[in-house]
């Protein structure tokens, strides 16, 4: 399977000259590769076979060992699934890059990106993992700066690369600490070696892993690169990146916290939950204030990562109290939400991609009325928005429902501090759900409904056949996941069972009529019943109303406009829509709005034009990253004085070191 990706990558590189062939070759290879990935992970997940092979490399400590246990199979399934659809989408979408940039490079990096992600989730040797991790970062870096001519994507790319590399530094520290405790870089040795490690080392590993993988997953204080990097990449790549690449961070957190480190401490789970709730709340608030469609979706990835962290945090808290069945529930909730988020986020990004390709701009204010011009894309985008705002019939609701149940169990049991944190996280989860719904009403409403606000929007036309096929498949997948959530939960139980700390525990059983009941009947829902209920009810109502009013005619007329001629400018704009919510949370977001009024040259009292620019200055930039940057530059300036240019001073350095060392030697002996 990796060979297929390698062939795809090299093929695309060789066919650099003529674009069409490179595009088709690259993406077909990606499709075949991800298809193979699907088969392998499916087999591993359902039949419990654990394919593993290990090639010892000539370099010491580095072994190319791959082992697909349940957890890796699950994540591999998610990755190949999303990659499969994105590649189908890409076959047509890449066509509008033909003239401008080299398609061969895109194919090369795209295949390398997917292959490295699959290796990341299956590698068993820490060094091999780090190599794959960096190759993934490298490939995604080149994909982010694919549109070389815009300086914005270059800056976003370098910010992204610096942040990921900082994250890798932390991850390397974590692995080195583990190496110190166990003496080898194999995950298997980590597992049994870590039991002996002292609590201090375990806490240090926890913190460094949290920061390292937090950067990749986009936890709030470390998320700065995400909103600028994802939109810069081509749409099918940003779908892959925010749908799946973020999950590799989550994968490793699960692998280390639940599988490798033996027991977990209470404060670990609580820290994760606090980080999760903050990320979700702030993520959605930032998304609300965003006008760039892809940036909005990127912020939503942060919000959903927050929700996943909530699930994971609760699992950690439960496992620290030894309640393995509840921990399995929390983990299942987190994993299920990972899968759901991957699917609907990918769908939304692909939808956004087609919209942007059609209108050539990313600013929501310019859209409008696209539902008539691009009906299918609008429908798929609607499905995606409903799923992400966790509305009942779809899968988003079920995973959020599971997370809620996990948190409910948490509230019941513990001491005051944990109980307060659980309650606050439930509150934040509910609030995030509501705000997400508000944000997507804004996104969907302003993009697709009412009249086009700019001539680009008018000229938009439906995207090609392939993108629609990909999006249709993804929407079917979302609906399917929603309906058969009971089945999915059972497979997840196997995955959670495979974790070292939660050996073989059943968290939920599926009662008759597919209703999933949890924890001695505390929470119970049957998604299919819900789905059928809504469909039947609306059919009955529609039939009744049709019978009642068969004689009545319906014609269309202009919208009521209290007399004035209705121009698109009068429609609600994205800023208008979210302004109310932003003013409410001005304490957190600190919105800035400055107005410039241009007066007539005659007198100061008759303004000719007034412009109000509303912005949101990024508090992280000013409070965390700017001081860091200034500190390093100041230090660098000081150190550069060492190279003063005067030769006598240089010889003085040598002289002083000589004398110093002689004294030092004397002290030491």
């Amino acid at each position, binding site marked *: 399977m990796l060979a297929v990706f390698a062939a795809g990558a090299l093929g695309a590189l060789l066919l650099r000259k003529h674009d069409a062939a490179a595009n088709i070759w690259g993406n077909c290879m990606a499709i075949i590769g991800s298809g193979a990935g699907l088969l392998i992970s499916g087999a591993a997940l359902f039949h419990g076979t654990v394919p593993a092979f290990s090639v010892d490399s000539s370099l010491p400590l580095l072994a190319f060992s791959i082992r697909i246990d349940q957890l890796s199979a699950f994540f591999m399934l998610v990755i190949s699934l999303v990659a499969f659809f994105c590649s189908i989408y890409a076959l047509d979408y890449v066509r509008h890059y033909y003239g401008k940039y080299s398609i061969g490079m895109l194919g090369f990096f795209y295949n390398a990106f997917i292959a490295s992600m699959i290796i990341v989730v299956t590698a068993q040797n820490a060094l091999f993992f780090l190599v794959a991790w960096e190759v993934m970062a490298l490939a995604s870096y080149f994909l982010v700066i694919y549109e070389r001519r815009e300086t914005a994507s270059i800056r976003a790319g370098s910010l992204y690369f610096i942040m990921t590399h900082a994250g890798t530094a932390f991850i390397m520290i974590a692995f080195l600490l583990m190496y110190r405790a166990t003496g080898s870089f194999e995950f298997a040795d980590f597992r049994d070696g870590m039991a002996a490690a002292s609590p201090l080392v375990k806490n240090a590993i926890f913190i460094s892993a949290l920061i390292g993988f937090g950067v990749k997953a986009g936890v709030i204080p470390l998320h700065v690169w995400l909103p600028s990097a994802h939109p810069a990449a081509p749409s099918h790549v940003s779908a892959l990146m925010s749908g799946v690449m973020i999950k590799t961070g989550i994968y490793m957190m699960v692998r280390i916290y639940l599988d490798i480190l033996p027991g977990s401490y209470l404060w670990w789970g609580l820290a994760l939950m606090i980080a999760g709730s903050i990320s979700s709340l702030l993520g959605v608030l930032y998304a609300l204030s965003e006008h760039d469609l892809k940036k909005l979706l990127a912020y939503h990835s942060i919000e959903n990562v927050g929700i996943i962290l909530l699930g994971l945090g609760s699992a950690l808290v439960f496992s620290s109290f030894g309640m393995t069945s509840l921990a399995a529930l929390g983990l299942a909730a987190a994993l299920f939400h990972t899968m759901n988020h991957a699917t609907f986020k990918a769908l939304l990004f692909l939808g956004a991609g087609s919209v942007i390709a059609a209108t050539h701009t990313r600013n929501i204010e310019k859209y409008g009325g696209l539902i008539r011009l691009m009906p299918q894309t609008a429908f798929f985008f609607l499905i995606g928005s409903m799923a992400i705002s966790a509305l009942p019939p779809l899968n988003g609701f079920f995973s959020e429902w599971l997370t809620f149940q996990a948190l409910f169990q948490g509230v019941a049991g513990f001491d005051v501090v944990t109980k307060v944190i659980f309650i606050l996280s439930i509150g934040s989860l509910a609030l995030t759900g509501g705000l997400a719904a508000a944000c997507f009403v804004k996104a969907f409403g302003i993009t697709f409904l009412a009249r086009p606000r700019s001539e680009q929007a008018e000229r938009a036309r439906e995207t090609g056949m392939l993108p629609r096929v990909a999006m249709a498949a993804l929407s079917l997948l979302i609906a399917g996941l929603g309906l058969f959530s009971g089945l999915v939960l059972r497979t997840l139980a196997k995955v959670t069972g495979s974790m070292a700390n939660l050996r073989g525990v059943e968290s939920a059983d599926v009662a008759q009529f597919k209703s999933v009941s949890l924890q001695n009947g505390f929470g119970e829902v049957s998604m299919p019943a819900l789905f059928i209920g809504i469909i039947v009810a609306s059919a009955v109502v529609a039939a009744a109303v049709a019978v009642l009013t068969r004689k009545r005619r319906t014609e269309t007329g202009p919208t009521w406009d209290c007399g004035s001629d209705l121009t698109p400018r009068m429609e609600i704009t994205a800023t208008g829509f979210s302004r109310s919510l932003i003013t409410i949370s001005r304490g957190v977001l600190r919105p800035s709005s400055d107005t410039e009024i241009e007066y007539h040259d005659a007198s100061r009292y008759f303004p000719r034009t007034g412009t109000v620019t509303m912005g949101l200055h990024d508090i992280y930039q000013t409070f965390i990253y700017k001081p860091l940057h200034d500190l390093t530059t100041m230090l660098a300036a000081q150190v*550069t004085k060492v190279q003063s240019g005067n030769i006598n001073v240089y010889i003085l350095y040598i002289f002083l070191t000589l004398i110093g060392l002689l004294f030092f030697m004397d002290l030491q002996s």
Partner: protein
Amino acid sequence: MAYLNQQALLVFATIIFAPAVFLHLTNKNTSAVRLYMVQSSAIAALLILSSFDRFSPLIAIAIVATVAVKIFIAPYFFYGLIKRHQLTFSVSTYLNTPLSLLVIAALLALTQSEFFDALAVLSTSGEKLLRLAFATILISLFLSINRKGALSQMLGILSLENGIVAFALFAGLEQSPGLQLGITFNILIWVIIATVFASMIFRRFGSLDVTAMKKLKG
């Protein structure tokens, strides 16, 4: 070296040590070169004395070569340089004379102190000689730090080399003649290149003052 008594050796050692100190004080290039000639002639004398017991043609050649290079060829180049560019007065120093004298005294005290009693291991008899030679090394190193003139820096390095050879002779480490020949040949090439560079610097910067060269910063 055994049959030479302590007294004579001590005299030679001071002859080598004194120029290093005076180099700090003189401000005329010509007198600096003359001091260097005095120092190298002391070294040459020591060499001749030490090679009496195992005389062989090769050693003779080696000695002749060192004498030629250190006493005749190097000063000839330096005088040429001084005459061509009328550099009678060498450029000022960083620390004025009393301060540099203070530093020299400190260095001297350092070498005599107990830090370097390990040197005594080398040769029980000439322990004071070794300390003196070590002092010359440190002081000539300080010379190239203190002086701004390119010529005095070169002289600092050459007197450092003389100090090392003196130390070797006192510690009874005479090299095999082949090596000595290699070393002197090396010094010769070094002197030639250094003088060529000095004249190029003079042509480029107008004076032999090293501090003019400040451009390569950071």
